[in-house]
């Protein structure tokens, strides 16, 4: 009952958060001295065309009225039209979001699957060669620029070895001959559940390099976080007591210690998920991955305010939900935490 109430209350909080975020974003973007109509009307437009477009789009109205119209539009499911793409922002988001989610989720899974064991090994073999190696890898993953890593992987696996595609989500031949039926928008899942193996293979091959590039940061994060927490937990009295009881070391490490050390890593990972949705734009750019990050960065450069506000609201939603999920997971893993 308590948890249910807690979740409902947190979800209701979304309404004022949305209102405040949309207001701040809208005002900040609109008071910047830039005229998005220049994008709307095209490169050589006349003053008459610009003025007509200004009236058509309601940009001649006072700012508070523009905001009111925007908010009313949101309640009708209308996030406005993008000044760059000339398409509804909601359509653009639905076009680009699945690709981002697929890439970021894959990268996070890789981050967890690789990062956790490495972190544990690193803690268990403190100051040994394994620890130094994983530290080197973690620091490299966190500090090396993603665009550089991405280009390096492209050179290696596309240009020189020639076993992986260089960019995109699917090769054109597959796209034409084995089109994927859109169900979730995740190519890997859609191709799998429709039994389109050729497309699955192609989509998987296209996902490897960008996902690996994007995963390097979470891997580094998880390795260091897990190592630190594991070292702390392994020094606790109850671990010593467990060992004294003769409990096998694997059980001590993975059942007792890791369970208590995993929470901070999970929290960090889940929170970085929201950031990666738009923060992955460099990876998306290099691999021509049609994601939300690249869309948002173009909108920001072009002062495409409808797209900026739309994406900001979406990312707000993801952050709030991610925080909620983390809180619930923490409460589940740690009985001392009570959600009220």
């Amino acid at each position, binding site marked *: 009952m308590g948890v249910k109430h807690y979740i409902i209350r947190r979800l209701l909080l979304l309404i004022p958060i949305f209102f405040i975020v949309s207001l701040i974003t809208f005002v900040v973007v609109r008071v*910047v*001295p*830039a*005229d*998005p109509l*220049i*994008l709307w*009307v*095209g*490169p*050589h*437009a*006349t*003053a*008459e*065309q*610009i003025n*007509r477009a200004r009236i058509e789009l309601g940009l001649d109205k006072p700012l508070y009225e523009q905001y009111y119209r925007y908010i009313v539009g949101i309640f009708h499911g209308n996030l406005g039209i993008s000044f*760059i*793409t*000339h*398409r509804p922002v909601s359509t653009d988001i639905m*076009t680009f979001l699945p*690709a981002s989610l697929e890439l970021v989720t894959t990268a996070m899974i890789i981050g967890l699957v690789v990062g956790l064991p490495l972190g544990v090994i690193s803690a268990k073999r403190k100051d040994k060669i394994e620890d130094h190696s994983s530290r080197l890898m973690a620091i490299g993953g966190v500090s090396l620029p993603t665009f550089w890593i991405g*280009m390096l992987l*492209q*050179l290696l696996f*596309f*240009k020189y070895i*020639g076993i992986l595609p*260089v*960019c*995109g*989500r699917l090769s*054109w*031949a*597959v*796209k*034409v*001959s*084995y089109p994927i039926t859109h169900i979730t928008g995740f190519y890997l899942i859609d191709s799998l559940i429709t039994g389109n*193996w*050729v497309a699955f*293979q*192609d989509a998987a091959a296209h996902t490897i390099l960008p996902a690996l590039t994007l995963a390097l940061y979470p891997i580094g994060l998880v390795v260091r976080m897990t190592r630190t927490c594991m070292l702390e937990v392994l020094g606790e009295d109850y671990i010593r007591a467990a060992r004294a*009881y003769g*409990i*096998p070391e694997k*059980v001590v490490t993975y*059942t007792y210690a890791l369970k208590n050390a995993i929470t901070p890593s999970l929290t960090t990972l889940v929170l970085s998920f929201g950031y990666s949705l738009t923060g992955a734009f460099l990876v998306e*750019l*290099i*691999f*021509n991955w*049609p994601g939300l990050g*690249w869309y948002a960065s*173009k909108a920001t*450069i*072009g*002062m495409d305010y409808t797209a900026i506000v739309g994406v900001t609201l979406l990312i707000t939603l993801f952050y709030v939900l991610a925080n909620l999920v983390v809180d619930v997971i923490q409460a589940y893993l740690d009985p001392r935490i009570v959600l009220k």
Partner: protein
Amino acid sequence: MSKKVFPQKKAVTKIQAVIIAVIIVVAVVLGWFLIKPPAPAEEKVGVFAWVGSDVWVFWDPGETFSNEISILNSVYEGLTHWDSVSKTVKPLLATSWSVSEDVMHWTFHLREGVKFHCGHKFNASTVKYSIERNIEGGKGASYIWACVDNIEILDEYTVRFNLQYPAPLDVIACAGYCSHPYCPICTEEHGHDWFYEGHDLGTGPYYVEKYDKAEELVVLRKFDDYWGGWTGKEFDKVLMYAIPAASTVRMMLENGEVFLVDHLPFEMVKDMEKNPKIRIQTAPSWQNMFGLLNTQEPSPLSNKLLRKAISYAVPYEVCCSEIRYGYATQSHGIIPAGILGHSDTLPQYNYNLTKARELLAQAGYPDGEDLEPLVLTYNAGDEDERKFAEIYKAELAKIGVTLDIKAMTWTAQMAKAAGPPEERQDIFLFYWWPDYPDPYSWMLSMFHSVAPEDIVFECAYYDNPYYDDLIDEAYKVTGIDPAKAQEMYEEAQRILIEDAAALFIYDWTYVRPMRVELKGYIDNPAYPNAFNLYDMYWEEK
């Protein structure tokens, strides 16, 4: 004492886990290698790339205005066509035309047997419908038809344009934007938004088969009923990708996954010149870069001598060689070579710091004393403009002038330029190219006087009634007396050069990296960056 055994969760035993893992790995590996990739299609496929994003935005033929002509010029056709070799207007959907003596009435005789991609017939009523819809919509480059008063259908294949004022309509009909007839029946049936889904209703050799918005991929297929016919060499299908990362496109080109790229950074181009699989094809363009100088108070550049002084501080040759790696030539006035109004005899400012210092002193700022820093704005992200700004800053510093460089987004740069006079920039870096093969748009759009509330590209804020009359008259006589128009445009440019209304920096040379096997690509400066897909084919060595 018995040893206490602690319970361990063993839903899956180790052996079971290993077996499952082995089965999964074997299945994945087998699946990976057993599934055959799709067999290459029998048809001839051309793959092209555009470095950038949001390339194909304006899909409605009544709104086209930008880079979508890279493909849409192979999908739609105009009444006339600019031939870049003979530098004349040639027939396309119109087979011939005539003009009245007062240049107020243009009669076009249309080609028979032409079909739109939807199967409907092309005739005079479709021309009238398309152009009138463009004018009424008032979007994109539709203003090119501003001179048209009405359109008369004389018979099924003859159409007459009656003008409000004399204008070179055969040249206007050449335009790459908003000049193409399209099917009225299907336009009315499907409406504006249908075009934006990636559909077309043109008469050209290719039609749009698919537009993938997310991946910015356009698939074109040859139109079997094309009036021009097919030789069999052409591509059956064309794939056009927009890819933002130049390094990625370069790899695709070098590995043969892409045949032609619209452009690549010059560093990459120079590097690829050594690659025997790549051909670097160059051609003169009608695109040029200049710096519009603020000729009005309170800008210090309202002082003509100061404008002249800083014009002598531009290292023109260095700009061509260092910024564009030699793929540019110093501008002669504002109109580039190959188009009416250009003249190699027009005076040029050269790089001469001694002269610049003299003029600076005459302007009342010896060694730059008492001169406030000049503000230069450019489009952030444009590497050529950034390099120019930095080179120019260093040169101006040599004569005691400080340059304050402001990299801005395009929208912010334009907003600043159209703002109150005291907030405007002093120098506005900018590119221009014509909407149709006529010099008027250069002369009009940047230097014709306008009311302050109508400022768009008139960022030199130039105000000279004599100049205004001269270019307006030149535009009117172009259709009947091109020689006279040439003289007038030359005179107008001499005025601009004498008044130093802009820094006339350089005219671009197009640089296209392509596979050596690709044949038939020709740059036509009247259609900037439009790929002539119908002429291209693949020929193995």
